[in-house]
């Protein structure tokens, strides 16, 4: 090949350079975008575990029990031989209601939704009752609460055998 021929590109070489350039640029952009995307997700999540062992049913008094509320976001409610695990997330907009023992109700501080101790909504704008979590017993008879499975009243799921335990 002569020297002059090397100084200019022919059409085919031009397009292959162009292709290499665009592919490199695209790959670099995609790599950067994926780094940015990864950065949106935290390295460590300080969230309560999704399931936990809640001791024996006899540990709980009749009515609403708040001992797991701060750690796991769960109220245990025992009534008429049934023990259930209730979510502490308001069904209106996701605030955390307060349990008011004197008035015997849950009351949300954000928009004033109120719930009976069993989680049925009666006050304020809440459109549906508090959700319940899957609850079961291990071999020793201890309670296991699994927050990954929820049971919703309006879908008729509260009588599901996983939604309560007999005590």
């Amino acid at each position, binding site marked *: 090949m002569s020297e002059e021929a090397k100084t200019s590109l022919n059409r085919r070489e031009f397009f292959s350079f162009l292709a290499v350039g665009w592919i490199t640029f695209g790959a670099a952009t995609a790599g950067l975008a994926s780094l940015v995307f990864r950065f949106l997700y935290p390295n460590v999540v300080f969230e309560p575990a999704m399931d936990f062992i809640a001791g024996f049913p006899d540990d709980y008094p009749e009515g609403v029990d708040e001992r797991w*509320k701060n750690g796991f976001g769960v109220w245990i409610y025992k009534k008429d031989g049934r023990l259930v695990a209730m979510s502490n997330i308001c069904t*209106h907009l996701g605030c955390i209601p307060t349990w008011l023992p004197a008035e015997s109700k849950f009351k*949300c501080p*954000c928009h004033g939704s109120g719930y009976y101790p069993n989680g049925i909504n009666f*006050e304020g704008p809440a459109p549906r009752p508090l959700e319940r979590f899957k609850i079961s017993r291990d071999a020793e008879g201890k309670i296991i609460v699994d927050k990954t499975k929820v049971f919703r009243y*309006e*879908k008729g799921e509260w009588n599901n055998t996983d939604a309560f335990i007999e005590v």
Partner: protein
Amino acid sequence: MIKEAINFLSSPVYSFTGFLVLFWIALKRIDIVGTKKFGWALLIGTLLIFGWMVADPIFFSIISLPDNIPIIILNALVFWSTWFALYKGNQNDIRIAAGEPPIEGTPENREKVWAWPNLVYTELFCGILCTIFLVVWAIFFKAPLEEPANPTWAPNPAKAPWYFLGLQEMLVYFDPWMAGVVLPGLILVGLIALPFIDMNPKGNGYYTFKERKFAITAFLFGWLALWVFLIQVGTFLRGPNWTFYGPFEYWDAHKVVAENNINLSEIIWIKLFNVGLPKNILLREIFGLIATFAYMVGIVPLITKKWGHRYLKSLGAIRYYILIFLLLSMMSLPIKMYLRWFFNLKYILAMPEFELNL
């Protein structure tokens, strides 16, 4: 005694109604409201009443919260700018009625100046003054340092930033999808659409009220009654558990207010017909569906016949029906508020199975 009366009268149903009446009178008698004499009387009267209210320790403790100070400033600014616009509009309306041009259209005011330096200098100084103001504010009113966030606990009352308190108050009457997504979205889209809907060339470059009566009334209603007023309620009158407290009332977290709310389906099927709720969702919510459809679609021809036909002609069909849709969406908020206050109505259409509640 007077304070108890004020506490009673400031409950949302009375204070909102009273506000609407005052709003209506103010726009009706703009020839009185839009005068300097009335402006001074209003300012002095407001300051006297406010001074008397501040002397009360409970009211003072509410308004002196760092979060609430911007709202006091907002109130002063809203008061001032609304009155000022009405005053200028009234002056021009009198001139126009007498056959003179508006003040902004007189020969000495038509003279033009350069944007640079006249405008840019003013903007620069405004920017500097705002910065100084914010720095001084940040020094004097410190942001509170609280414990680390805990996802299983919420403060009581849990209040949004002050500019969102109207939205939070709106959420008391609506499902989060409506008051949190649909209505705010419509507010934004509607405000963007306004210049394309409003074809009235009058009022360009000068203040007027009479030439733009409907546009100004509708906008001020949405802004003052449905946004600013609700911010006042959410800020000063909502305490623990988002219960209503009068301005001189101690925020007792155990104040019990009966507010058992029920859905339209329950009112009709259980209370009226005395039968249980039907199993079928569509049958259960049939009245809510009819009411919603009647409100959003059914009454449109009636409105057009009674009042809207001239707008239909001047705006064209597309603009006109967008305008009606926006107006009806806006009016759904006060309507829902009154239904809640009078009938304890929770939702007209309640389908929690599909997260759809109106």
